[in-house]
């Protein structure tokens, strides 16, 4: 009986591990995807997928912003998810944040719990994805790297201060980084 309980417990543990779903930065159909989303996707598509995937309430904020010298106002929506049972490149996923301008995805941020090993793994993934346009990562400071190409800016950095022990990964529309530089700044 005791053995049965142990086997059952072990099985449940394995099931729990197996149920953790993984996200990564990758390429699909010629487009770089982060957390399964690619820049330019429509709000409804991203949010429908994220809601179904993460099954947690997102924290959303809507406001109006400017682009370039224009005095037209543009809609800006930010939605963050903090799912409990997800991993990013094998590390516990802390948060995924989607940024939309005019209901189009312009930036994705992922925060995962990890340190050097995760940083190096993501760096290797980025290097592979952007090898043709950015043979070498641009160093933005200590443990902070950026790649550009495919009309994107991609970055990874180690968390500092309260965020120590986290790795931050982001993907940004190169155009929006020019039109609204503050959006490309942490």
């Amino acid at each position, binding site marked *: 009986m005791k053995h049965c309980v142990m086997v059952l417990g072990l099985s449940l543990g394995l099931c729990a591990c197996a149920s953790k779903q993984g996200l990564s930065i990758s390429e699909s159909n010629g487009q770089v995807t982060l957390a399964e989303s690619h820049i330019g996707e429509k709000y409804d598509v991203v949010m429908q997928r994220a809601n179904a995937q993460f099954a947690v309430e997102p924290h959303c904020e809507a*406001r109006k912003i*400017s682009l*370039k*010298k224009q*005095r*037209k*106002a543009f809609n800006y929506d930010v939605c963050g998810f903090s799912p409990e049972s997800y991993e990013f490149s094998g590390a516990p996923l802390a948060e995924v944040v989607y940024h939309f301008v005019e209901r189009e995805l312009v930036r994705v941020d992922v925060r995962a719990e990890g340190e050097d090993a995760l940083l190096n793994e993501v760096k290797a993934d980025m290097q592979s994805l952007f090898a043709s346009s950015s043979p070498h990562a641009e160093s933005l400071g200590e443990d902070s790297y950026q790649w550009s190409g495919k009309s994107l800016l991609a970055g990874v950095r180690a968390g500092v201060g309260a965020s120590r022990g986290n790795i931050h990964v982001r993907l940004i529309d190169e155009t929006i980084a020019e039109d609204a530089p503050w959006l490309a700044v942490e």
Partner: protein
Amino acid sequence: MQHLLKIAGNRTRRVSALLAVWFCASAGLSAQAMADERDLSVSPTPEKNFIIGGTPVQQESYPWTVALAHVANASLVQRQFCGGSVIADTWVLTAAHCLFDRSGNLLSLSDFTVATNARNLRDPDAQEHVVSNAYLHPDYNHNANNPHSDLALLELATSTGVTPVALSTKATENLVGLQGTVIGWGAVDFSDPASPLFPDQQYAVDVPVVTLDVCNAPISYAGSIFENQLCAGFAQGGRDSCVGDSGGPMVVTYQGVVQQIGVVSFGFGCALPNYYGIYTNVPYFIGWINQYVFVGEPEFEPEVSSSRGTTAISSSGSSSSGSTSLFALLILGAGLFARRRS
């Protein structure tokens, strides 16, 4: 809603692929250059960097002002993106750039409405009107870093029932020195470009019209402002139109009559020292406007427009012609632009 394309004019020419995106990437360099120049400025810093410096509009002060708003399931406060003015019962004057999305594609007429009676955007009495036609000035080039002829006319499907604003027909030199009043729902605090503060209530701000020489100074817009534009504001900054005010009117009171002289077009930042607000010069375009809505004879030789020709967006719910790629309208409009330049 389906759309028809109506382009008046005898011929169009192919234009370069410049049309794909908004203003050129050199804007970043220009901005840097401007910032560098600003560092040399001896102008005092304004107390506040914000319609910026204006006051809330009293009910019925400017009944002919309208808000352009996206069609979406959200409040008018969230949906408003530009302003405009009623110049005839079913005609609204606004800025051409308001009709483009961030990628440089023309909006579909079914993407936005025109709201009247909305001094406060939360006012339940605000009325939204469907736009049946939109006409962009043929010389407007959305790609330009400094878009000239930033003007568009919207024809509404329903009567606004609003007494229209008079349009000034004065020559530019007669406008310099006048006190302009700019009205809109734009940001009242732009000190953090990431989080501009937008009011529910309409605001107005008084700004003097200055000469083109002033705003073409090296320390300001460095020769990039033309006679079909107006500059208004203060050297020290502090009062200006801002994000969300685009398309809205600048008016003056001349001989006891309120007359529109400008349409909010653009500006470097908001209310910054030496960076005046740039407005489309309405009297300059009276000739073009008259081709659609007669608003009076200009008191000077206005721009010559060879045809009613324009980039025009038409919408008809009963049309069977299908949805038009409105980006094509931009290309064709720029074709007219190229023809006029040649």
